[in-house]
């Protein structure tokens, strides 16, 4: 469904139900990995179906996912001595000779007109034992997503941590020169593939936020020459405007139960404060008062607390208050600038934009003790967002003059840059785990 809204000033905004972009918009490079990634082999899958070539290279996608995590070193298929597709055909001695610790074999099987099964088995090479075997059904359009699900299963079995290959990211792009810019809100796989435009506008879009069920995105749009907050449903492209009050409407975030938004309003007094908005009954509740700037709210995962940015102490710092409002307690104490908090999934730390000796970098701050660990190395880093397994952060940074995205593991060891072929990329947000 495509909706076009025009007004007399030739501002246009296009809304899409996940319209696909013709080519992959993002390109990913590894800039720093772990010292000893696990040697693993994902043998090219067999094909059981019509025609000589399978409709999708499952093994290549799984291999790319595991490599991109920085924790695995997949063997180049050209170096494989044999290519079994079933467990009973695996000769473990051959793989031990190559120094491989884990081998994965499988087949893509056509089961119907546009239906398939992704079948795989995973073995510990030294013990010769099967670790995992599974048959994952997938329709033709689900082959990419199904392969990501398999990569997630493998990752969880080997690391004990739930994989994020089947999650999504949303981000904003800006292309064109001053006075003629196009802004887009895009949803893609974490590898940058499968990118789809949600919104396209001649005016800025900001602050995308995923709903807890991954079905909607809230965002700020300036299509009316001022800030307003919208919620758009991904599947249908339908959207509704949830806040267009006088003054600023900004920084929307969802409560963990999906029933409310926390947001920033300035109303007519011009003073930014935090409010919550109940999405079913539209009841608005003001949580902060006072002349300082209060903005960038975020909920703790258990829904009990709201963390936010306030400059009541002179410069921006992060504070915490009960989700019902009340006294706020300061949480960041290192550095003159700490803003835009986001909670880790376990609630122990916040990721913030932190000014470190003149450089704006992403730091993790322990919520209870205030210990600050600077993770990134740029000059203008911003917008950190946790992957739902808490292992990685995605954030916005620069490469030269271009706005690009970066990912960094929360232990600070694995760094990656994600750049667009044209224009700037900014404000990335990682989706929750998919709810099936």
């Amino acid at each position, binding site marked *: 469904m495509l909706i076009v809204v025009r007004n007399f000033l030739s501002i246009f905004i296009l809304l899409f139900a996940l319209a696909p972009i013709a080519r992959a918009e993002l390109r990913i490079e590894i800039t720093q990995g772990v010292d000893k990634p696990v040697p693993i082999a994902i043998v090219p899958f067999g094909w059981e179906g019509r025609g000589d070539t399978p409709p999708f290279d499952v093994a290549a996608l799984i291999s790319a996912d595991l490599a991109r995590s920085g924790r695995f070193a997949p063997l180049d298929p050209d170096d494989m001595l044999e290519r079994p597709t079933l467990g009973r055909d695996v000769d473990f001695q051959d793989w031990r000779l190559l120094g491989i610790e884990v081998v994965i074999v499988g087949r893509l099987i056509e089961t119907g007109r546009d239906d398939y099964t992704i079948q795989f088995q995973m073995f510990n090479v030294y013990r010769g034992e099967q670790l995992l075997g599974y048959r994952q059904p997938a329709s033709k359009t689900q082959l990419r997503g199904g392969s990501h699900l398999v990569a997630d299963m493998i990752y969880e079995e080997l690391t004990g941590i739930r994989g994020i290959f089947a999650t999504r990211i949303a981000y904003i792009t800006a292309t064109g020169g001053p006075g003629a810019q196009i802004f887009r809100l895009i949803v893609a796989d974490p590898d940058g593939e499968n990118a789809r435009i949600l919104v396209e506008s001649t005016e800025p879009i900001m602050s995308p936020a995923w709903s807890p069920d991954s079905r909607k995105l809230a965002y700020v749009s300036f299509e009316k020459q*001022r800030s307003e907050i919208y919620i758009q449903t991904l599947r249908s492209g339908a959207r509704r405007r949830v806040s267009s009050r006088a003054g600023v409407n900004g*920084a929307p975030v969802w409560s963990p139960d999906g029933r409310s938004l926390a947001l920033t309003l300035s109303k007519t007094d011009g003073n*930014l404060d935090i409010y919550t908005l109940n999405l079913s009954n539209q009841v608005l509740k003001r949580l902060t008062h006072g002349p300082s700037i209060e903005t960038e709210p975020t909920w703790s995962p258990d829904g009990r607390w709201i963390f936010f940015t306030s400059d009541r102490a002179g*410069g921006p710092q992060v504070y915490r208050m009960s989700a019902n409002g009340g006294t706020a307690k300061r949480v960041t104490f290192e550095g003159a600038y700490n803003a835009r908090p986001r909670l880790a999934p376990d609630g122990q730390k916040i990721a913030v934009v932190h000014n470190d000796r003149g450089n704006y970098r992403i730091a993790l701050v322990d919520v209870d003790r205030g210990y600050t660990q600077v993770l990134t190395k740029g000059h203008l880093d911003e917008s950190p967002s946790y992957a739902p397994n808490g292992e990685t952060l995605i954030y916005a940074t620069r490469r030269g003059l271009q706005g690009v995205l970066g990912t960094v593991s929360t232990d600070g060891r694995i760094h990656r840059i994600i750049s667009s072929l044209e224009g700037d990329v900014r404000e990335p947000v990682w989706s929750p785990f998919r709810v099936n």
Partner: protein
Amino acid sequence: MKLIRQILFPVLMIVLAGCTSESTGTRDASGVGSVPIGGSGDDVYRAGSPMDEGAGGIMGTRIIYFGFDKTDIESDYRDILAGHARFLAANPDVDVRLEGHADERGSREYNIGLGERRAQSVREILLLRGVSSGSMNAISFGEERPAAMGSGEEAWAQNRRVELIFSE
């Protein structure tokens, strides 16, 4: 937006010119003319107002700049705003949008806050000088609409601003 700005400046000049001359009269050295007494017998002179030539004058400066992390108005700009306030108070049909901006450093929504505070600072000065609240509209764009692309103090200084945009 651009269209409105281009029309307004000539309109502004015509409005001011109309106050100062009607038919032949003498002009003194400052360029302000006096209105001759017509046949109506009315000998009260209406007040003239200064005419600014070119973009360097007070009415041409419609962007107020701010220091890093600052939202208060420096004294040079206060004089400029006084001029705008007089114009607006004398022309109640004219509205003004006060668009506040910030440079790109730091988080985006906090920068919306800085832009809003700057726009509100300008609004307060105009209000104190007699501009009606209803003819002003303060909006923040944060760092989302830079005047100067690129990084470094030169670009940042140009982006920390409030733009006054007049319309009728």
